[in-house]
């Protein structure tokens, strides 16, 4: 790229009001993986693996390993990788597999959607796959049930390629200015006829499922197939600027608005200071590092001796931990602890590498 071209692109970005914080994607370089780095047997339920990226599927017998992989791409250490482990060469009508990132409406107001000044949106990313052919990227407006799709082509097997897709602005249907889901960015990987039997919708329109992923190759048709992505950027305007690299700490903080793993597989990590409300009923407050998007769901793994409660020099192993009074900034954990007296203090820690304490406020 020439210097003149770079300066022109910078000028375009300036005009679009996006010289800083221009990448609306969180964790676009796939740095943060609080839940773990490899998940086998990923199949027919929606689930988050690498932070902020949700894997989804439906009516599909295919299975994938989803992992945070070593990208081997200059400037990017990590990628998100789908590796097909159970093939489905013949798709049912409703079969589908996709990756998506979801956005809060209050973070999308700069797009001016639903006005005559609606901004174009440019999505750029690096992708490689052993399955060459046509793939579909889609923007889906959850507030107004509208969508727009574009195709891209992987032309060389197992070779990193950057794809840049610019979508028109939508003058119909504004995004709600709140903390709820307004926009989804999809990468389709498998699409049965329900999603692919029409004509690809390359202009914003009310959703017709058959027009969403027309032409999409079947990534699940062989266990030799894999697909990797990194360097994902979504920005205002018609110009793809260079990827906006952010520090790990910055990305982690952004991710923790949606998901926070308080216990992180670290054996003997302290989970909470505690006090006894009775001889063995124990409570401890967990404060989140960031205000979460909404009141989170509490999820703790359970298993024999997964946790250990201490008070006055003695301890008792626990298999499970509960919670109540959960808010966006903190929660009260509760468990049955070592017999002592009400009011006495202690602490509780992980006692097994499988012990995890999670707070989930994903969209």
């Amino acid at each position, binding site marked *: 790229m020439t210097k003149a071209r770079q300066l022109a692109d910078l000028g375009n970005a300036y005009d679009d009001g996006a010289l800083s914080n221009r990448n609306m994607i969180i964790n676009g370089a796939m740095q943060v993986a609080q839940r773990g780095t490899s998940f086998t047997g990923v199949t027919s339920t929606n689930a988050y693996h690498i932070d902020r990226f949700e894997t989804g599927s439906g009516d599909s017998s295919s299975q994938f390993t989803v992992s945070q992989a070593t990208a081997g791409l200059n400037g990017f250490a990590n990628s998100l990788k789908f590796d097909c482990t159970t093939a489905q060469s013949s798709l049912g009508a409703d079969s589908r597999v996709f990756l998506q990132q979801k956005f809060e409406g209050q973070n999308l107001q700069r797009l001016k959607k639903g006005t005559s000044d609606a901004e174009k949106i440019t999505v750029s990313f690096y992708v490689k796959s052993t399955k060459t052919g046509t793939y579909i990227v889609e923007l889906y407006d959850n507030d107004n049930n509208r969508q727009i799709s574009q195709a891209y082509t992987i032309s060389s097997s197992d070779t990193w390629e950057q794809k840049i897709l610019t979508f028109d602005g939508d003058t119909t249907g504004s995004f709600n200015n709140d903390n709820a889901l307004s926009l989804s960015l999809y990468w389709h990987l498998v699409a049965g006829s329900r999603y692919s039997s029409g004509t690809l919708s390359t202009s914003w329109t009310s959703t017709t499922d058959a027009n969403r992923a027309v032409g999409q190759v079947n990534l699940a048709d062989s266990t030799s197939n894999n697909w990797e992505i990194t360097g994902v950027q979504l920005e205002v305007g018609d110009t793809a600027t260079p990827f906006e690299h952010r520090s790990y700490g910055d990305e982690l903080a952004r991710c923790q608005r949606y998901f926070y793993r308080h216990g992180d597989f670290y054996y003997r990590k302290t989970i909470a200071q505690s006090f006894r409300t009775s001889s063995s009923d124990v409570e401890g407050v967990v404060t989140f590092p960031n205000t979460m998007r909404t009141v989170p769901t509490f999820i703790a793994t359970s298993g024999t001796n997964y946790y250990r409660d201490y008070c006055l020099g003695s301890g008792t192993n626990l298999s499970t931990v509960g919670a109540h*009074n959960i808010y966006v900034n903190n929660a009260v954990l509760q468990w049955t602890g070592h017999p002592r007296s009400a009011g006495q203090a202690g602490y509780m820690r992980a006692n097994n590498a499988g012990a995890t304490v999670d707070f*989930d406020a994903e969209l």
Partner: protein
Amino acid sequence: MENNMNITSAQYNADMDGNNSGIKATIDGQEMFVPLDLANRHYAEILKQVEAGTLTIADAE
């Protein structure tokens, strides 16, 4: 859109005053404590399945 959570049980939790404070649910095989917050995706899905008649929330113990 397009959540396909497998919810196999749901029961209200009550606070010390006897008021429902959340739902203890098994979702995709994992036990969760779900707050009664409409912006929470798990609670929204529970309500959706209750409305569809495919899930019942048991009373608190």
